[in-house]
């Protein structure tokens, strides 16, 4: 693989696919969890980048610059995916369990009896398998659109939550509620579908 010209102010679109397309595709895929959509986003990214070539000043590397364009495309997607006039916490997914599903409002917010975390140590689990990762992906797919990206970015980059908030246009309290609910949902999904408890 040839070296990128990242110490110069020039871009080389003829090398973009070879050098970055897989990375960009993965980047998009984990945020939208949809193969076709991820490919479309990469395509949109390259097209937008070609239009914006004049704006590249070389402060960021070519890869970083492309990723930032892709991020914007992804954010546009989230905006379209969440239906009009919904607050960040009431996204269009009807599959996301509410707090009441997990916690009993009456009893000081304790776990509902059927959602109490079970003991994972009782089953022998090999998490390091393709099948597990498929289950993980499926559980991720259950999250509302925007939550997927927030969740991913937060976990992967040990997020500076301020950065994630900025990128997803969230207040910090919204961000924490999303992370809380996403974690609750993911944990329950894995317990049910992988550990089969």
């Amino acid at each position, binding site marked *: 693989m040839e070296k990128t010209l990242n110490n110069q102010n020039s871009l080389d679109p003829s090398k973009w696919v070879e050098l970055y397309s897989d990375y960009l595709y993965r980047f998009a895929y984990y945020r939208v969890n949809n193969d076709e959509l991820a490919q479309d986003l990469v395509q949109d990214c390259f*097209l937008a980048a070609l239009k914006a070539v004049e704006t590249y000043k070389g402060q960021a590397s070519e890869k970083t610059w492309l990723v930032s364009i892709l991020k914007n495309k992804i954010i546009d997607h989230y905006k379209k995916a969440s239906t009009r006039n919904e607050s960040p916490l009431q996204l269009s997914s009807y599959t996301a369990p509410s707090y009441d599903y997990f916690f009993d409002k009456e009893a000081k917010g304790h776990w509902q009896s059927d959602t109490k975390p079970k003991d994972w140590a009782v089953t022998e689990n090999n998490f390091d398998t393709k099948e597990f990762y498929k289950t993980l992906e499926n559980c991720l797919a259950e999250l509302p659109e925007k939550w997927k990206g927030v969740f991913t970015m937060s*976990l992967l980059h040990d997020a500076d939550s301020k950065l994630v908030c900025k990128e997803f246009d969230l207040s910090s309290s919204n961000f924490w509620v999303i992370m809380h609910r996403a974690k609750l949902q993911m*944990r329950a999904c894995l317990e049910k579908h992988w550990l089969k408890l």
Partner: protein
Amino acid sequence: MEGIKEHKHKWYTFGCKDATYLTVKGENAPLSLSEKMLLNFHLIICKYCRRFASQNRQINQLFRAFYGKSDLKLSPNKKEALNQLITENSKK
């Protein structure tokens, strides 16, 4: 808006919903002294929230490993199509 009342945890109303919330928040943001105390005390007495906390850590690790394992790639066909698109749109 449903959510958690920030900074209004009282010891006599602090429950599992609050504890799991602070568990998640504490991964990324420093908790106040009173938040830490409320959370730690709750974890001592509540095995379900202890489970949540350790399972939460496990999920974090698994998720990061998931990314590390990924061998998602674009097909050669798709790459060729993209290259063509770039060539067509580069001509100005």
